[in-house]
């Protein structure tokens, strides 16, 4: 088991396909939120999913993380079908998501927020998990501190999460997900609502993380998307409209029409 988030992915997956969906469909009653989506995510790449609101991007994340079960089609993670697996099992497999809205444990300290995630991998229902004081199990604490340093939150480790600034909260959000030691990290609008300065910092952080974690982003800021993505998937009304490199997407007429508004881009 990989115990630190700084180690690279196992080499056997380097350059291979980490995640693969085939005819993935999710229906809520009469509404088809995700419609016959087939795509592959290559290991070690940054992938962006773009599309208008209601295009099914978040539902796709919910399918990948086990929040929803696919109506039909398959999701394979490293070749193993994960459709219908429970969220906590999928996290253990290596798929973790971060949230668009700040979604953490606001009454707990910054450190404890992250420590809960690092603890998850080594705790369970053994007798010692019930009797040992959480403060005397050193490994998750050390690891949480390392993750906090990495996202530049080391100075506020003891502060209550509710008292963090907006930018710090967004970084904590990413830190919690990182602490769960993902091989594949799904990030839901990591720069939403940020000032240009905060956005720049976060983009730097994302590219740093991408050195050893495969990333899938939902992002609305086209500049960022075009700048950092290796591959882009465009969704519209639940379907996959196009897939390709930033250059290919920018030149795709259907995408221009449906999403980029048909205007000329430089």
């Amino acid at each position: 088991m990989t115990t630190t988030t700084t180690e690279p992915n196992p080499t056997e997956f380097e350059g291979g396909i980490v995640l693969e969906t085939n005819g993935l469909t999710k229906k809520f009653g009469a509404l088809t939120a995700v419609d016959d989506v087939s795509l592959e995510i290559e290991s070690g790449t940054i992938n962006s999913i773009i599309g208008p609101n209601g295009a099914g991007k978040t539902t796709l994340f919910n399918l990948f993380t086990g929040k929803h079960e696919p109506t039909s089609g398959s999701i394979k993670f490293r070749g193993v079908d994960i459709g219908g697996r429970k969220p906590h099992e999928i996290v253990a497999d290596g798929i973790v998501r971060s949230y668009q809205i700040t979604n953490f444990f606001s009454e707990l300290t910054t450190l404890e927020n992250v420590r809960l995630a690092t603890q998850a991998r080594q705790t369970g229902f053994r007798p010692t998990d019930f009797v040992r004081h959480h403060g005397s199990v050193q490994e998750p604490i050390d690891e949480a501190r390392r993750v906090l340093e990495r996202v530049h939150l080391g100075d506020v480790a003891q502060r209550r999460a509710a008292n963090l600034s907006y930018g710090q909260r967004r970084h904590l959000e990413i830190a919690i997900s990182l602490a769960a030691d993902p091989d594949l990290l799904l990030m839901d609008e990591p720069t939403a609502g940020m000032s240009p300065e905060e956005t720049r910092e976060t983009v730097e952080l994302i590219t740093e993380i991408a050195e050893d974690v495969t990333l899938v982003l939902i992002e609305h800021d086209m500049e960022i998307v075009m700048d950092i993505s290796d591959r882009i998937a465009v969704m519209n009304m639940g379907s996959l409209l196009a897939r390709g490199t930033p250059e290919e997407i920018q030149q795709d007429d259907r995408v221009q029409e449906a999403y980029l508004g048909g205007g000329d881009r430089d």
Partner: protein
Amino acid sequence: MKAVTEFFDRSTHSRTGNQLLSSQGRFALLVSIAVLAVAAPIVQMIHPFWLNLMVRMMIFALLALSLDFVFGYAGLLSFGHAAMFGAGGYAAAIVITEVTPHALVVLPIAVVAGVVIAALIGWLSVRARGIYFAMLTLAFAQMFYVVAFTDLPATILDRGSVTGGDNGLYGIGMYELFGIDFTSTLMYFYLTLGLVALSLAIIIRLANSQFGRVLQGIRENEERIEFIGYDVQRYKVVGFAISGGFAGLAGGLYVPFQSVAHPGLLHWMISGELIVMLLLGGMGTLWGPMLGAGLVVLLEEQLAGFASWEIILGGIFVGVVIFAPRGLAGILISLRNDPGSAVENAKQAVRDYLEAVRG
């Protein structure tokens, strides 16, 4: 003394910035236990009845503690804790009458009865959240009430009587342990005090363990804790079962002391009163609800002479919820942190409320 505080909690400094009780708080708990132990013989001399009341206060404090572990600490709003209390009580009554009155046999069985019932109710209810979970626990507890009231086990097993139906089981014998005479209220007081203190120590231990931290995470943000890799439902069921064990122990202490097990133990009124104890005491602090339980039992006893003492208890309850939403524990904590401005804080609370009412 240090060895004792360490028993309560080995790690005296918190490296994660999270500690259920400060070392000062743990010391205060130990002092309270010591004061109770010393005061008991004196109370006995002055007025024996008061000692009897103190035993009941402590038993309900244990019951409130067990509920706070899942409700205040893990955010599981259980409205059915009477079921585990009653299960422990009936188990104790039946074992004492039919098998043996040995405390080391009966009390563990009462605990197991509470665990089993709680695991069952928990397993069936944790899929629902919030108020739906509360309603399910209430419904299951009421089912157990009906089972005891109609003596369903006797019908199923084709025996004369198991739970004694609406009469209950009476004339329950007293515990035996190392030749101690527990018919003496003083001895029973010490048995109860010892077990309540032990339970508190264990629950504080659990709350500070890695398991306990996950429960707290569930209270804070159930969705997120699931998506960082925890099996939330399993944690809830295990937490609920543990809580049920302590509720069962409370039942096992209550029944021989009252020498009767009746369906009223399982009634939702008990569960409801428990919620009042928690809110009055300040949930999530563990010691607050124990204070709240003591206060409610005391008030019931003292005010029972009045025609409608519930109105007085209700009044106090409303007052606490409005002016001190964090309960007695909240009042005590703010008094400790800032004793100088206590009067000012109280005035402020009244002003805030009046302003809120005026809109």
